[in-house]
């Protein structure tokens, strides 16, 4: 086996070990806290795809489709984070922009009168534009003034949320309803389900997967994606090479904003009938977990999103069918997060492979040098 492949395999194994460790933490906590730990574990690990009937275990298609449906928004937020983190921009504003995207999509879905097809496209595009514009703020503040994009984007999450709540309450509320929510969307704006069985699995997932391909191509097959990655790896190198670093930093965050906006609007128009988010939806943070699991590579985003959606569903089922609360998901996520992002986790083994590679390269080189020496 070539050593490069060995390194790749090592990285895969390391990821698996991180996930395994996180699940081990979860298992330990379940055994500590639960009176029925085995039931809890069963639902956490198998529940999402298997129904337990008296006759035995059956694959649960509906539940599986629900999981697929739940991936849609986190694929978008994961992609957004991939692009921004690739440029080393720790913009954490995905939360707010997703909510805003949902809100913009909802408003246009309610008040525009268009044919179906066009209507959705207009809603989504508008959400993308608004999302991109909003992310211009932390990006420009960073590039022009050096203000930390992390802090500004965090603050913006709250600003966006409160402004949306203001308008939802005072301008767009449907007073006929008990709870604060908007009027229902036009049917023409709804993103249709792929199979109408209540799983909420809409064509949004297909759009999300298309975007995975687009963003993967963008990051690895276009000059802009290349520039974003180089700026992320070494800003001095990028500048010296002639890349316009400031513009690229802005571009990465604007694209992150657009993706978040699209994700928010698709989620809103697919899953709901009226706008009723009363707080930040949480997809932005999940997006960070997804991006970290995917090592900032768009291609791995669906897999990571699937994994998180599966865990989420597992935790839901566990909380329904046992005495372990749903919020276990956050603990598992945090643990995965910590170990997955830990560069030195199992680093000893990695070092061994690297050293072996280096030694072999050196031997090769010396051989080549002595060969050249003989020639001259």
């Amino acid at each position, binding site marked *: 086996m070539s050593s490069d492949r060995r390194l790749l395999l090592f990285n895969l194994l390391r990821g698996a070990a991180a996930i395994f460790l996180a699940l081990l933490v979860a298992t330990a906590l379940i055994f500590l806290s639960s009176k029925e730990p085995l039931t809890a574990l069963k639902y956490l690990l198998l529940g999402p795809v298997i129904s337990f009937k008296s006759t035995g275990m059956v694959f649960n298609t509906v539940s599986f489709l629900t999981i697929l449906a739940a991936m849609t928004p986190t694929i978008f937020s994961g992609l957004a984070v991939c692009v921004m983190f690739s440029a080393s921009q720790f913009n954490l504003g995905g939360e707010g922009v997703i909510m805003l995207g949902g809100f913009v999509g909802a408003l246009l879905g309610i008040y525009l009168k268009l044919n179906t097809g066009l209507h959705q496209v207009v809603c989504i595009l508008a959400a993308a534009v608004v999302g991109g514009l909003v992310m211009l703020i932390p990006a420009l503040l960073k590039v022009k003034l050096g203000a930390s994009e992390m802090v500004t984007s965090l603050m913006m999450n709250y600003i966006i949320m409160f402004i949306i709540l203001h308008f939802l*309450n005072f301008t767009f509320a449907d007073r006929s309803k008990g709870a604060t929510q908007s009027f229902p969307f036009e049917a023409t704006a709804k993103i249709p389900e792929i199979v109408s069985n209540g799983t909420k699995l809409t064509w949004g997932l297909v759009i999300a997967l298309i975007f995975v391909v687009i963003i993967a191509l963008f990051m690895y097959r276009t000059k802009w994606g290349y520039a974003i990655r180089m700026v992320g790896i070494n800003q001095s190198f990028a500048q010296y090479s002639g890349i316009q670093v400031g513009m690229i930093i802005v571009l990465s965050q604007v694209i992150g904003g657009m993706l978040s906006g699209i994700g928010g609007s698709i989620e809103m128009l697919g899953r709901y009938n009226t706008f009723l988010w009363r707080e930040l939806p949480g997809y932005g943070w999940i997006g*960070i977990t997804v991006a970290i699991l995917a090592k900032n590579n768009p291609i791995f985003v669906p897999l990571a999103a699937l994994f998180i959606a599966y865990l989420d569903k597992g935790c839901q089922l566990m909380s329904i069918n046992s005495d372990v609360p749903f*919020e276990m998901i956050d603990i598992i996520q945090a643990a995965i997060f910590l*170990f997955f992002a830990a560069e030195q986790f199992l680093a000893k083994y990695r070092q061994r492979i690297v050293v072996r590679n280096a030694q072999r390269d050196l031997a090769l080189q010396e051989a080549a040098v002595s060969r050249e020496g003989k020639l001259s």
Partner: protein
Amino acid sequence: MTNDLLLLIFNADFLFSLIRITAPILFAALGAVIAEKAGVVNIGLEGIMMISALFGVMFAYWTQLWWVGVLGALVVGVLLALMIGFFAFELKTNIILAGIAVNMLGAGGTIFLLSMLTGMKGNTGALVTRELLIPTINIPLIKSIPVLGQVLSGHAVLTYLAFLFVWLMWVLLYKTPLGLNIRAVGENPDAATSIGVSVQKIQYIAIALSGAMAGLGGAFMSMYYSQGWNSGMVAGRGFIALAATAMGRGEPVGTMLSSLLFGLAQALRTKVSGIQGVSSYLVSVIPYLVTIIGLVAYAISIKNKLKKRSPASKGA
């Protein structure tokens, strides 16, 4: 309406609540100050506050002693901060990501813990009785001064402590050998290494102190401010603290002033939202908006300073 506003601001009640509201932000911001001085970013303040707040209530409930609760919150804060340190320094997890992980624990892990420990959902309800709250103190002499007494007397022990810590933090940083080491490590780690000061050890100490501050902030929230723990309680104060620190240039006194500014914005929001015709939501935006404006003002001032300092940066 302008009149109403002025009346609202210029009364003792308002100033009293300003101090009360500022205290938790100040605790967390001081936590950010000490971390930053040692060259460490602690973005996990928010999560530490949440978790410490919960443990504060729990410890107080278990022992039926409020001060054990406060102490417990402090210890939990230190442990969480050390965990961030461990992952960041030993396993080389990006420290921002390690902080985010703690924030996740703060958001969901607390609810899980609460349910595990008590079976309660989302808040501690009746666990916190009056006796378990952090007690308030009336300051004998000042109390009887007309307006000043109303503003300064009758705060919780921890409120006074928060402002006392501003001074203590300044003393620690500028008057003790540890402070000297912390500043050296933050500014030039190589300098510290070259004379045998362990950078890692100093950074561990700094982040632990940072966690202690956030822990006290958490205890203040659940054991006084909200009179019990609930899941939406900290509401971004940990993040605001980061901004306050950036605006306060990482100095204890400056950070206190910017924390007061954020406190003012929040106090205004509470007051103004009571007025008919004012949107409580838009008023809620104020502290966050002030944060961004403050950051921008700070960034501009830094930029100007740099320009003055070196003629070379004019084109860059």
